[in-house]
């Protein structure tokens, strides 16, 4: 895929390729960060930027996806109050629901999921963002670094710290779970 296009037909064709290939992933990225009701509008705004700046979109699809995520992140930052526009964009997790699906799963994993859900809100938005880019959005370190406009080294360091912090919160939760009289699967906030 050529990174620059000249004719309107080529330009539209290239945009169509990017649009089709990245739309679902971009929608997922946005849904993790805003109310689902607003997600499609944000994706539309991001794609509009991509159309206007098509020659700046990386040719390689994976890098193009990261580029779109970066635009989406800036778009989300800009919709906030001015004072925190430069802050990280917090990431939400799904609500924990215990049900029949848990029946066939290892109890440790079920309990761990509850601990993660409880620990997640204790993380800073910066750390949530680093972990989510890596684990949920499926980006490599260089791609995630590009989304955040930082170096790969800085991202790896941030991700390492984020994981360590999450682990500490989970350990605290697990220790509390082991206390006599505490339910191991208690999902109440800690």
């Amino acid at each position, binding site marked *: 895929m050529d990174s620059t296009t000249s004719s*309107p037909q080529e330009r*539209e064709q290239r*945009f*169509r390729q990017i*649009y089709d290939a990245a*739309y*679902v992933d971009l*929608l*997922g*990225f946005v*849904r*993790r960060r805003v109310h*689902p009701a607003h997600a*499609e*509008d944000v*994706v*539309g*705004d991001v*794609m*509009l*930027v991509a*159309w*206007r*700046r098509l020659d700046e979109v990386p040719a390689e699809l994976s890098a193009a996806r990261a580029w779109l995520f970066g635009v989406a992140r*800036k*778009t989300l*930052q*800009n919709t906030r109050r*001015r*004072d925190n*526009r*430069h802050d990280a964009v917090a990431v*939400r*997790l*799904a609500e*924990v629901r215990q049900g029949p699906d848990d029946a066939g799963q290892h109890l*440790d*994993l079920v309990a*761990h*999921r509850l*601990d*993660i*859900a409880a620990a*997640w809100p204790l993380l800073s938005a910066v750390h949530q963002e680093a*972990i989510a880019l890596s*684990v*949920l959005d499926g980006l490599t370190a260089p791609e995630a670094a590009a989304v955040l406009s930082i170096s790969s080294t800085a991202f790896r360091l941030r991700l390492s710290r984020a*994981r360590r912090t*999450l*682990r500490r919160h*989970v350990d605290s939760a697990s220790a509390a779970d082991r206390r006599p009289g505490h339910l191991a699967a208690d999902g109440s906030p800690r």
Partner: protein
Amino acid sequence: MNKHTLDTMTTAALRDLDPAPPTVLTDEERERADATFARIVSTLRRHHVPEESDRPRRRRSRLLVPLGLLGAAGAAVPALLLNGGSAFASWTPKPEPLTGAAVGEAATTCRAALEVPDQGEHVVVAERRGGWTYVLITGPKAEGTCLMRDDLVGHQDPADHTKEGFFGGYTADPDKAPTVARDRIVETENMAGSVPTRGLQIFSNDEGWFSSVQGYVGKDVTGVTVHTPVGPDVEASVVHGRFAAWWPSDQPSSRNPEVMGAWTYTVSLADGSTRLVTG
């Protein structure tokens, strides 16, 4: 539980808790996605004007108030904005040049707000459109612009400008002036941005969106008019070989892609003739 096992379990747990797990679009989502695609492409196709191949690359500034879309193309002026429904209701398409002490006061305020040390920059453009003052200062080590509500002019505490009604930015490595044909202009910067305007107008949004352009003019150019995509024509300030203009806009989005359409210019020349250019 060892660290590796915990990390593996944590990854698995996080993916279980993903609020947007990998999926395919529903038919309804696919229809909406296709409609958005068509809206983006078809509208901009109608407004597309090819840029000149030697058009200078847009520059980025360090912005105190972040832009909605850095480098985004021009914007329209919705009727609502021009009918007084926004903080820019008093905006005028023709600028009023600042004179005398007002020039220095605006520049000093801008420099203080941007926290740019005085390195010998001089004022290039200082104008007022309605209740808003725009100033462009430049020098070999810095170039900055400010758009501010008139009542903020004269306030030199940077904290005064972290509130509503101020937009500004500067670059510490300004580009050298380009070579411009006598009867031409070179647009060096354009942007869509927003000014926090909370409390300025009842029922108004808390962001006043605008678009701005600036650049250089050739020796024979005496006037520059910007033809915005769907809004009114805007008369630019032309002074000291530079031009600058800004106009109220709407927030660029996929719902109104026409505001991102291309614009053109009419330049007026010293011999009385005019010329339509793309900048």
